[in-house]
């Protein structure tokens, strides 16, 4: 086998930032080569360099044995490199055919020669198993088919080295299977494929070789049949993965939260929540499992007082049914919402103003008369330090932070007030491994100190590892209670879908 693409010791600095320090990569022709790394590890920069969008400060690029230096993507395309972008770049009101030839139209005299184009595209589609109707409007296509059009676009321009940037991010599992079949088809035809992803299970399924980069440098090159996804993950973060687990029993005597026959009616046929009852002690974590949309978000909103319900909820032994959201929060209920952008942040505002959200009635922010800006800023600095929120300062806009840092900030905001009850909905969703471990650690410490926690998550290992008890919700009802000590993700998954 010959090497189709080779990068040697690529480095690239942006003003003040080193994006790539020493990245090397060797892709065999006729193979699928995955490039993995955490967010911000420098994957995209490598690919932009290979695709001619950026120039390296040092290092060499070889394509099919010849050294190259691309000044623009045009030059990369000319030697057969193509990029399938994560976000499709298609014109909705054009047909598939028109989209594919757009910018590279075959001409006869002054006219576009659609006949030639159609013939070429139909042939290509058949050869590579990428069937799609050339005369269909793109707006009528599903996501998977649009991706095919993107691939055909690249092939049409003569690419034999294809870069896929996080191609499965937008696909459903069925479409992922189709894509992988197509990739293997392309491989059979001798194409080289570079597959960028951080979904390790997928990487192992589709790739022949894997290059792992961390903090801008290549740290490993392995054959995918020789590694497990756990090993890959550890290579990516450079240390052992944090585990979701708690130690010992920290459950206290007193009951913090009690739900009795809580029901939330809906306009439709079935209730959003039906007769939910449970007791939660201080120092206890109750995990709520369920396929999304089975009442978990309604449960959190009901506890917070955002939804109207029948039945009784008591907090610390007193009924809170008539208390408003603000009164409940002031009693000591903290909330990490499932959708941080919609529910927990003002993205266009500085961090110190986001610090206020939810605690505008509490010290040190509210001094009983006005908001104390100075104290708030100091307190924000403290949270950023204590919870490792990486941003220049309290004046940084929330939107500028990465998802993981935003989440750490939200967790910190709730934790510094040491609420008696924390309602945590998907607390580690969409954050990188490091932040995930940090958030688990915070939850662990809080549990030991006696915080009661309602934990909702789609990550079954997190649920099993962190919870003292597990409730399974299905169609707004609690359908099972499991002991996490003798539950596996498989068993829990089965219970979630209602299988016996």
């Amino acid at each position, binding site marked *: 086998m010959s090497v189709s693409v080779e990068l040697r010791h690529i480095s690239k600095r*942006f*003003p*003040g*930032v*080193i994006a790539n320090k020493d990245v090397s990569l060797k892709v065999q022709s006729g193979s699928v080569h995955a490039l993995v790394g955490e967010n911000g590890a420098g994957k995209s920069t490598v690919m932009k360099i290979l695709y001619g969008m950026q120039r390296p400060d040092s290092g060499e690029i070889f394509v099919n044995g010849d050294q190259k230096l691309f000044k623009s993507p045009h030059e990369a395309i000319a030697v057969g490199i193509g990029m399938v972008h994560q976000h499709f770049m298609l014109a909705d009101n054009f047909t598939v055919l028109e989209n594919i030839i757009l910018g590279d139209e075959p001409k006869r005299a002054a006219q576009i020669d659609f006949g030639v184009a159609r013939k070429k595209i139909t042939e290509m589609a058949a050869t590579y198993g990428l069937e799609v109707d050339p005369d269909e409007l793109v707006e009528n296509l599903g996501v998977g088919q649009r991706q095919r059009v993107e691939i055909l676009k690249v092939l049409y321009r003569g690419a034999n080295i294809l870069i896929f940037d996080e191609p499965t991010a937008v696909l459903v599992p069925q479409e992922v299977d189709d894509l992988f079949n197509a990739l293997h088809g392309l491989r059979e035809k001798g194409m080289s494929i570079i597959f960028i992803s951080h979904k390790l299970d997928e990487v192992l399924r589709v790739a022949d070789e894997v290059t792992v980069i961390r903090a801008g440098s290549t740290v490993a090159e392995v054959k995918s049949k020789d590694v497990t996804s756990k090993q890959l993950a550890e290579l990516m973060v450079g240390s052992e993965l944090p585990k979701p687990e708690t130690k010992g029993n920290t459950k206290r005597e007193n009951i913090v939260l009690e739900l009795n026959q809580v029901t939330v009616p809906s306009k439709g046929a079935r209730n959003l929540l039906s007769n939910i009852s449970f007791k939660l002690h201080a120092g206890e974590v109750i995990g709520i499992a369920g396929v999304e949309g089975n009442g978990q978000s309604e449960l959190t909103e009901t506890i*917070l007082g*955002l939804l109207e319900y029948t039945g009784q909820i008591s907090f610390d032994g007193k009924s809170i049914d008539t208390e*408003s*959201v*603000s*009164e*409940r*929060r*002031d009693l000591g209920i903290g*909330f990490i*919402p499932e959708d941080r952008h*919609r*529910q*927990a*942040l*003002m*993205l*266009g*505002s500085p961090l110190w*103003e986001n610090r*206020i*959200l*939810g*605690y*505008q*009635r509490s010290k040190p922010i*509210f001094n009983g008369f*006005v*908001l104390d*800006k100075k104290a708030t800023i100091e307190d924000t600095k403290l949270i950023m330090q204590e919870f490792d929120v*990486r*941003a*220049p300062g309290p*004046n*940084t*806009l929330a*939107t*500028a*932070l990465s998802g993981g840092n935003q989440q750490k900030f939200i967790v910190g905001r709730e934790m510094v007030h040491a609420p008696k009850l924390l309602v945590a909905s998907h607390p580690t969703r969409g954050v990188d491994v490091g932040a995930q471990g940090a958030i688990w650690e915070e939850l662990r410490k809080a549990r030991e100190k006696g915080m009661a926690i309602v934990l909702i998550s789609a990550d079954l290992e997190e649920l099993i590892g962190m919870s003292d008890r597990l409730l399974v919700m299905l169609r707004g009802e609690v359908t099972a209670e499991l002991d996490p000590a003798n539950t596996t993700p498989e068993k829990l998954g089965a219970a979630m879908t209602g299988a016996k």
Partner: protein
Amino acid sequence: MKVTPKKIYLALAAPVSAAVASILISSLALLATKKSPTEAFKTMWEFGATTSSVIETLNNATSYYIAALAIAITFRAGLFNIGVEGQLRLGALFACYFGAMFTLPPVLHILAIFIISMTVGGLWAAIAGILKVKRGVNEVISTIMLNSIAGGLSAYLLSKHFTVKIEGSNNLTTQELPASGQMPNLSFLTKNLDQSATQGRGIYGMFAIAIALGIAFWWIVNRTRFGFELRASGINPIAARVSGVNSKRMIVIAMISSGAIAGLSGLPTVLAETHAYNLGFRAGLGFSAIAVALLGRNSAIGMAFSSLLFSFLEVSSRSLDLIDIAPETYFIMQGAILLSSVIAFEVVSRYRVKVVSEQLAKAVANA
């Protein structure tokens, strides 16, 4: 935050480029009608810079500014009160009608008039707030309709119930306010000026009230819990609700406060000059104020500048008639300023976000 040349440049970029663009657009409009832009601008400037014009500009700006504050308070809460026009009209009408029925010591009388006008304006705006909360009626639509109703209602009340007959005049007017209800001018500001230069004009007492309102607006919006909750509701209503803001109550309170301030904005001329509500009551102030608030980016200081600018253009453009240019050119200038500043601010703010994210990337990488 350090002040760097780049920051100063960024802060000035938007207003300066907007000013240049709007002058260009207005010049083109003038050229299209075969008039000389330089002559037009020169005439406007010379007329606008006279003492009496400056006083008039300040007086006019007073109403603009208060009405813009009324609109800004809803903008900040993520609402849009288009009904300022109706609120200020009804407020002024009732304040004049009832204010003329009693006499009180001077300051108290004016306070009573304020309270009447604010109450009427606030109640009128509350209708839209309650409709939105209870029935989900969009406040833009309801306030537009309430404007029509307010126009009809005030005309009806003035002509049938509130009017007093004046011999030899067709004007419909309420009873003149007693002396204690008339607001004196800020004569200490103009006492050293030449009587012929001021043409007997003085700066309205309401001018001082407007400044006080502006300071109060800034403080309440930026420093109080209510202000924070108001802004949070505007920036991210869902997050505000999660944080414990009662969004329904916030909508009603924001509308009522807006209507109450709107009620004050109809009073400057009435209290200082006409001393009564009559057919000549100025129309359209509540609509112009939307543009003033927009141009001033809903900030207390920004709107001070934009109301002065609009007022200056309005006063000085009257001189265009003298050199045979349609004074309506004023509307073209107004529109050009508004459009170019909205675009310029948007462009600059996008650029600013880009600069900030780059700084952030640097800072994080160095950490």
